[in-house]
């Protein structure tokens, strides 16, 4: 039998094949030859044959019949055989097959071989593909080799131990003693692999972690090694572009991260070295930046001092400007991780981040988009949204859904005005309408419903949009719903925000019917339009046309449509008296989202002063005189002047009527008057606090009984109590003033003063007219801070005009229930 052809020969031959079929033929021929050679148990050429088999395997051909041969090679005494045998084992065998267990004995023997290169082969194979059973059997051998003085073997044993621990975590303990003096080695290979081993152990077990922190004092050792690497001069063996062993530096930094995380002492011990690495590392090549990157990750993850954190963010900021896109990419990734904790620092780099939206690379664009959304706030919303909408227009389809959702979320949180909000929604629907998520449609509808004064504007814009394009389903669905709901506004041309369009009822119905028949409409959309048409029967006069349409669809093949049509038909025929009630205008919907009511208030119209201003109330000089009077009355010293916010000029109140969650101006009737900037804000100064103290959100069931504070001349003032949720020392009292006489009490002003140990805050009243005959009450909220939990006392002063003459009265209130101040 001629000698089997050599490996190189085979490779050359196969490469001459011009077609796949030709190659396959050659391979099959050779495989047959190899198979018969294996059958003959030929020791001499086994090695060569397996090598050829491995080549063919790489080309994609099956080679499982060589598995046992690999085992035979491993068992051979010849180094060449072992080399190919172990390679074959790593390529052809996998731990799912029992065959691999046959290797265990061979590996065990080879781990104790006299030649270190054979030992090395065994360690490599075990560390690369050893199964859990093999690891269990051979862990002892690995542990022994971990303690050898031969650095060639020691470094391999360390990584093999890492693999063993990953496969069989319970065995971790057994390697602990061997780790004792690993770091005192001079050999960089051993150092590197030891750090990897220690990292693995610390990551897996909190006990190990604290052991290494406290007992072994790992941090100082690592700091010392790192320092030597940085300070020592040029070492040709480990130098990479002027940096000494960057691989080791990076691994040490990573281990330091794990040790410093959540631990003040460790973090402090590594502070200096981190600062040193951050400032001294050469940044001209990728190598230096790799180290800086790891350093930044470590600084951000441990309990570093703020100066160091700022340094880290600035490094990332510099990365963002680097020409190398890889560096920009890692910068964006890291900034995304830190944007929550170091928000302000990251904000400084906002414009660079926004520029990255225009990058060519998909991954960079995605990260820039996520980061941009994280950086949007009330201040930059307009500018940011412009950029993001531009991005939405031009980005790849894979981004559109996420971007659209992000835009909606950001708009909801920070919209400076309702009109802006609606416009933004419209822009998204018309540019990326088909990518918008399904759940956005109901959210948008709710938003539109709640923006009462924008209804006409919204429906008009939506109508115009679907005249142009009915292919984007979410847009069409929202539009149909709105037309159904507000079609009357559309036809009557009531729009104030822009030029109202002239459209007739028939034209509207044409559009909606068009949606029903169009091939572009999905069944869901058809459902929306049919319902919309039905709703218009109570808003339009062309009821007969609607009746006709509805009855046609009573026999539609689409079951959903059919059902709706049949029910609507019934509504026309048998239940016509119920129709107006059923189809009337939708009420404001309760917001069920996780955003609290505070967020909703922030979307108030622009006619109100902006959100940020509400945090800084301007107190009007006017109450000063009255406060002084009160001081005099109460004998001066034991009284704290009252902070009183002025009366509102607008009808909507901040006092007790926040049952209207949105504080929406138009709900109290009519558009808001032009803003008077000189008038101080009518809302409570601490927006969030104010809201949380409202009856609705507070725990009224605290059960403090109300009391009558004053009852004279027909004026009765009742106090009701709540506890302010965040701060139990604050009692929130709402006064209810009612008037049982037959004439109104106008210019009603309520003032209060408390002893010195208390602090009092008086919010604005609901109005200054107490209507006659108990037809209504004036409410006002008082917040009393009582840190010393003393008994609450109060002096009140009432002034009002009754039947043309001014009335003034003082009273003391002492009958506070104990629960209100305890």
């Amino acid at each position: 039998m001629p000698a089997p052809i050599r490996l190189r020969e085979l490779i050359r031959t196969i490469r001459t094949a011009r077609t796949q079929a030709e190659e396959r033929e050659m391979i099959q021929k050779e495989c047959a030859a190899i198979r018969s050679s294996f059958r003959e148990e030929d020791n001499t050429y086994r090695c060569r044959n397996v090598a050829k088999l491995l080549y063919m395997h790489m080309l994609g051909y099956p080679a499982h019949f060589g598995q046992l041969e690999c085992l035979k090679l491993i068992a051979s005494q010849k180094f060449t055989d072992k080399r190919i045998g172990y390679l074959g084992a790593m390529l052809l065998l996998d731990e799912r097959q029992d065959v691999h267990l046959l290797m265990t004995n061979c590996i065990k023997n080879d781990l104790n071989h006299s030649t270190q290169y054979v030992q090395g082969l065994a360690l490599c194979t075990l560390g690369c593909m050893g199964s859990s059973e093999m690891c269990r059997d051979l862990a002892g051998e690995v542990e022994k080799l971990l303690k050898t003085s031969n650095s060639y073997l020691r470094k391999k044993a360390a990584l093999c131990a890492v693999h063993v621990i990953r496969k069989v975590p319970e065995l971790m303990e057994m390697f602990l003693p061997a780790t004792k003096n690993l770091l005192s080695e001079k050999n960089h290979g051993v150092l590197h692999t030891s750090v990897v081993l220690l990292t693995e152990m610390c990551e897996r077990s909190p006990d190990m972690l604290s052991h290494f922190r406290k007992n072994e004092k790992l941090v100082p050792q690592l700091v010392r090694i790192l320092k030597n690497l940085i300070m020592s001069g040029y070492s040709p063996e480990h130098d990479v572009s002027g940096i000494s062993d960057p691989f080791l530096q990076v691994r040490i930094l990573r281990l330091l991260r794990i040790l410093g995380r959540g631990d003040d002492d460790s973090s402090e011990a590594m502070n200096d070295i981190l600062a040193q690495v951050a400032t001294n590392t050469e940044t001209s090549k990728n190598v230096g930046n790799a180290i800086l990157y790891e350093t930044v990750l470590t600084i951000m993850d441990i309990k570093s001092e703020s100066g160091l954190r700022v340094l880290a963010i600035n490094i990332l900021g510099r990365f963002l400007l680097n020409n190398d896109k890889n560096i920009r990419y890692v910068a964006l990734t890291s900034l995304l991780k830190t944007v929550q904790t170091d928000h302000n620092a990251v904000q400084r780099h906002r414009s660079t981040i926004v520029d990255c939206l225009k990058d060519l690379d998909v991954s960079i664009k995605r990260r820039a988009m996520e980061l941009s959304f994280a950086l949007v706030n009330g201040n930059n919303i307009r500018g940011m949204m412009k950029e993001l909408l531009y991005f939405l227009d031009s980005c790849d389809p894979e981004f559109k859904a996420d971007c659209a959702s992000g835009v909606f979320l950001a708009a909801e949180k920070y919209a400076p005005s309702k009109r802006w909000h609606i416009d933004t929604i419209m822009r998204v629907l018309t540019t990326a309408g088909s990518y918008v998520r399904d759940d956005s449609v109901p959210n948008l509808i709710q938003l539109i419903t709640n923006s009462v004064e924008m209804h006409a504007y919204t429906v008009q814009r939506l109508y115009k949009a679907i005249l142009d394009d009915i292919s984007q389903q979410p847009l069409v669905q929202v539009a149909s719903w709105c037309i159904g709901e507000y079609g009357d506004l559309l036809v009557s041309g009531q729009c104030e925000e822009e030029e109202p369009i002239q459209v007739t009822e028939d034209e509207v119905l044409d559009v909606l019917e068009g949606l029903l028949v169009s091939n572009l409409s999905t069944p869901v959309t058809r459902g929306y339009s049919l319902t919309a048409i039905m709703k218009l029967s109570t808003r339009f006069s062309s009821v007969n046309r609607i009746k006709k349409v509805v009855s046609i669809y009573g026999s539609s093949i689409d079951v959903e449509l059919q059902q709706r049509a049949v029910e609507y038909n019934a509504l026309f025929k048998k239940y016509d008296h119920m129709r107006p009630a059923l189809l009337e205008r939708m009420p404001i919907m309760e917001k069920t989202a996780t955003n609290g009511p505070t967020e909703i208030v922030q979307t108030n119209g622009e006619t109100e002063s902006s959100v940020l201003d509400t945090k800084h109330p301007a107190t009007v000089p006017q109450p000063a005189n009255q406060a002084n009077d009160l001081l005099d009355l109460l004998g001066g010293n034991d009284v704290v002047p009252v902070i009183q916010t002025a009366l509102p000029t607008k009808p909507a109140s901040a006092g007790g009527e926040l049952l209207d969650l949105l504080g929406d101006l138009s709900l109290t009737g009519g558009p808001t008057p032009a803003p008077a900037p000189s008038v101080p804000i009518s809302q409570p100064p601490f927006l969030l606090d104010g809201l949380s103290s409202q009856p609705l959100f507070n725990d009224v069931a605290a059960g403090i009984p109300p009391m009558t504070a004053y009852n004279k001349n027909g004026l009765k003032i009742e106090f009701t109590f709540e506890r302010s949720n965040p701060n139990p020392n604050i009692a929130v009292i709402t006064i209810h003033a009612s008037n049982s006489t037959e004439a109104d009490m106008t210019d009603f002003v309520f003032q209060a003063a408390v002893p010195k140990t208390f602090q009092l805050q008086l919010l604005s009243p609901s109005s200054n007219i107490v209507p006659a005959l108990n037809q209504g009450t004036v409410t006002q909220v008082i917040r009393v801070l009582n840190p010393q939990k003393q008994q609450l006392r109060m002096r009140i002063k009432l002034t009002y005009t009754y039947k043309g003459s001014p009335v003034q009265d003082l009273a003391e209130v002492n009958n506070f229930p104990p629960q209100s101040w305890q």
Partner: protein
Amino acid sequence: MQFMLLFSRQGKLRLQKWYIPLSDTQKKKISREVIQMVLARKPKMCSFLEWRDLKIVYKRYASLYFCCAVEDQENELITLEIIHRYVELLDKYFGSVCELDIIFNFEKAYYILDEFILGGEAQETSKKNVLKAIEQADMLQEEAEAPRSVLEEIGLT
């Protein structure tokens, strides 16, 4: 590192090293997917890709793509350095390495990789030491083979 792939611009696999246990079919499927993804990248794009829960770090050297799949917490930039180090080792060993060297001597490429990386982590950070170990192992191999190959030449096997 979970795996490393070397492939040509036509998508032909020249080396595959797996550090996680997978069946042959799974390996084939993953290789195909990753190769396709990397070959689709334009030159201006960055060297990092997200794929499933891993990061793919790749770099092209002449006609060969070197591609590593690393876990989420790995430092991508240092992975690029690892790839570069491997290329330098091959270059030193073969003397101005080209794709053909790796095709015809694939088993040597594996041996070199196995002296540099073990279980997915770098075991030796000194170029000199890796090359020395390979040299010694090669000599060991030659010593074992030398007498036999002479006989082979003569035809007296």
